[in-house]
């Protein structure tokens, strides 16, 4: 069928080969094959099913790592600081923030949008990449989904506290009170409540449902430890107890008891039966399908907060997809920010989160960063093209006005900095990637700040005012980082951070056509496959 003789084709292929000669010289950890005919391995280290389970469960069952408690203490301290700031805010009023008359939305909305944006990566990775059959996602999806949920929790805090009279925050929900006052259904702020609420619910379900089989694994392992009782001697005896000590009692360690019960409740009776798996797979696919439009809808609705208005600089039709791209961008950056240290701190994680996985994520950061850059440029162009002097002024003021530094930071961090990932060295040198992800997180915060600070020059020049945050603003934001890290550290300590069953699915031996299962594999490749 080939137009040339097979021998000649092979010869030409070999000649072509020479261009990229030197096998594996740039495959880093063995996952970075550039040969287009092969797919890189998704799990390294010749692991079998048992070693996958043992490694992932081991991170939870082993002694608390030495870095965990200080990290948890610091996170908690920050969270407490943030909580104190919120208490101060509630007992004093929103005057403790740096808000002024034109800038009536300050850091609260900036932080809200930033956190919601970060919360996009998890569902994108678990739902959209699942539908696109990107198997490399299996090693990071649980991690990213957890991050999503905690980010949305942090995001949800800010609309709740920014209303001033916090005890009225329940009025965000469409519950008719005794005066039959409903919230304003024409307000995008109310749509936010629905959009973020739905997103949080579905993300939580998706995360939890995906975790059920793995929790059942942890349950079974804890139950096994509970049943293998530990011999326990007098107080002075060393542990483990030497065999010659006669006066020993056998007890169940309380930690194993608790783990067995708690994981048992959380596993909801999962017994690994094939019927359970069948339902699981169906439910997973359905939730992936449901979550996919949500990835787009949440940040589209958040963008409506700004874009439905007639304010110059806010009313732009490209806002919905541009916000979504920005959200995915910041979410991926945050996943990497967390994943890179975790990869260093947890032995064995490098086998699952390979250099290739990191590289793929870098590429997605470049793509989404460039989409965001595309939107910035389109906004500028249409602001000029539209011929509305106020619109033009808003954009010129953003770039060259009193907040020029914020605009510069945004453009540099979001559009310029991710372009470094065009170069392979940058996509593979881990400390550098880490630095860029921090830069991107900062840049995406500034993007929201730039949008919000457009308010500082409103329609009446006499009321123009410069917005600067107070210490309370800053510490509340830092506090939300503390809440996020606290929750995340708890997740790392007590829940399986990798989807055990999914990782097993992408091992070579999970393929029924793997050579280890049949000796005459030629007969198995019929037309029916």
């Amino acid at each position, binding site marked *: *069928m080939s137009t040339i003789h097979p021998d000649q084709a092979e010869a*030409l292929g070999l*000649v*072509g*080969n020479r261009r990229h000669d030197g096998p594996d010289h740039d495959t880093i950890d063995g996952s970075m094959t550039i*040969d*287009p005919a092969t797919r890189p391995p998704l799990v390294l280290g010749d692991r079998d099913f048992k070693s996958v389970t043992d490694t992932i469960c081991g991170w939870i069952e082993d002694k608390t790592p030495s870095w965990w408690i200080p990290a948890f203490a610091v996170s908690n301290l920050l969270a407490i600081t943030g909580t104190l700031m919120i208490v101060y805010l509630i007992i004093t009023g929103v005057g403790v923030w740096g808000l002024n008359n034109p800038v009536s939305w300050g850091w609260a909305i900036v932080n809200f949008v930033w956190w919601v944006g970060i919360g996009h990566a998890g569902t994108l990775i678990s739902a959209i990449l699942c539908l696109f059959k990107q198997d490399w996602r299996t090693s990071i999806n649980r991690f990213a989904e957890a991050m999503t949920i905690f980010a949305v929790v942090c995001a949800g805090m800010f609309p709740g506290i920014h209303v001033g009279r916090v005890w009225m925050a329940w009025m965000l929900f469409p519950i008719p009170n005794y005066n039959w006052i409903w919230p304003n259904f024409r307000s995008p702020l109310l749509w936010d409540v629905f959009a973020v609420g739905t997103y949080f619910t579905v993300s939580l379900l998706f995360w939890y449902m995906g975790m059920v089989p793995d929790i059942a694994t942890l349950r079974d392992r804890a139950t096994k430890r509970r049943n293998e009782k530990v011999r326990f001697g007098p107080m002075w005896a060393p542990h483990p107890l030497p065999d010659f000590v006669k006066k020993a009692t056998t007890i169940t360690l309380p930690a194993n008891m608790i783990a067995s019960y708690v994981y048992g409740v959380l596993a909801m009776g999962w017994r690994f039966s094939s019927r359970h798996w069948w339902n699981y*797979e169906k439910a997973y696919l359905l939730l992936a399908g449901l979550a996919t439009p949500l990835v787009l809808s949440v940040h589209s609705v958040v963008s409506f907060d700004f874009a439905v208005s007639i304010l110059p600089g806010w009313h732009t039709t490209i806002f*919905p997809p541009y916000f979504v791209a920005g959200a995915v961008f910041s979410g991926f950056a945050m996943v990497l920010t967390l994943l890179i240290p975790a990869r260093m701190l947890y032995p064995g994680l490098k086998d699952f989160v390979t250099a290739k996985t990191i590289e793929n994520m870098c590429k997605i950061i470049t793509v989404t960063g460039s989409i965001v850059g595309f939107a910035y*440029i389109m906004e500028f162009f249409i602001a000029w093209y539209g011929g509305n002097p106020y619109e033009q002024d808003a954009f010129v003021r953003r770039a060259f006005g009193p907040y020029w530094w914020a605009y510069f930071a945004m453009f540099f961090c979001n559009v310029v900095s991710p372009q470094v990932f065009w170069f392979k060295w940058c996509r593979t040198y881990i400390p550098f990637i880490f630095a860029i992800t921090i830069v991107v997180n900062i840049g995406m915060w500034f993007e929201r700040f730039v949008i919000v600070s457009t308010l500082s020059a409103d329609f009446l020049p006499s009321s123009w005012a410069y917005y600067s945050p107070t210490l309370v603003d800053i510490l509340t934001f830092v506090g939300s980082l503390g809440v996020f890290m606290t929750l995340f550290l708890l997740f790392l300590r007590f829940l399986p951070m990798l989807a055990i069953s999914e990782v097993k699915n992408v091992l070579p031996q999970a393929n029924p056509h793997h050579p280890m299962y049949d000796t005459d594999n030629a007969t198995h490749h019929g037309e029916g496959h």
Partner: protein
Amino acid sequence: MSAHAPQLERYLERENIFLSEGAGSTLWKALAGLGAILTAVAVMAGFTGGEEGAKIALHALHTGFALSVMLPVTALGFVMILNVVKSGWSATIRRQLENMMVLMWVPAIMFVGILVLQYVLASAVEVTDPKYAPYLWEWMNSAYVEGDVLYEHKKGFLNVPFFLIRSLIYFGLWAVLAFLLSNESHSQDADADKWRTVTALKISAIGLPIFAFATAFAGFDWLMGLDFHWFSTMLGVHFFASGLVSALCVLALTLLVLRSLGKLHGCFTQEHMHDLGKLIFGFNVFWAYIAFSQYFLIWYANIPEETNFYIIRKAGEWQWVSWAVPIVHFAIPFVLLLPRPSKRNGLVLGSVCVIILIGQALDTWWMIRPEVVMSDGHRPGISWIDFVGVFGPLLILAGFYVRKVASGPLIPLNDPRQGQALTHVNHV
């Protein structure tokens, strides 16, 4: 090839992946000939139908052109995306997209024809007020823009020389990318050099940002520029989203026809059909999302220079078209394509593709055609000229596409990921 099991080798036999000698030669001539006749009829109607005929013919032909340019352009975009994501399953169906993208020269000629026709009609057709001379791009009519403050502002961008240069740049960039990628793919057919796939990836990665700007600005110039007062940052994305779903529908239809001719066993299976169906479904929803967001934001903000675009389309008989577009393009395909079995059934998938393509023709026509405004201010509704004007250019493109499909192998012959495509399965 030797890497494949002998069973897969069977799929690569010549009769499975080549059309027979001389196949389609009658069909392409018939299609292109019919298209040429319809186009000629539309042009003649333009010259004989007075002011209304001239304007309708111009806008209908422009709709035909817009649809004809969308398909090769977004086929190019999608080929680049497939290359960049190292797609394996599509290694046997990519060739039909490549066949589409290299037809960039057809709409390029149509574009020149439209411009020439506009100027000839503008001088040939008598109108009482030169302000209402039959122009497609009203800003090109000096009588129309006289004293227009907004035009004065936009003159630096919207002037004929710069417009021509820009159009040349768009076609040039697309053509270069299409040529380079098609060249890599066809050279790989001959020399089986797997590293050409890596070269294609690199070209695509660099090409995509270029492509994004060229396509967005082409949308601004050729669609948004028809009403130069109106503006929407989303329009470039809308143009791409429209084209993408249409190109995927054309791809699916092509493959279904080839399959029904007894070709592409193993190369285009129910599994590929299923995945293609998912992509069509997904990108159709994406189109709806973009179109709705654009409408919704403009409707809600209610700023006169923006809403005018929608107001003229919500008035008179155009409102029925405004209703038909979301129903035909989005609602019906959404419901039909949602169940799993319908994506795995060639008849249902093919029918949905036809419905989406009709919806797309309607959408593009709805974007362009209501811009026709007569001297007395009324906006004429549908006429027979619309049918000949829209389908003329499209049939010409279809004719050349048939010729291109029949001219070579139906799949890329030596793609290194061919094996993955031949064994592609959907597990759920």
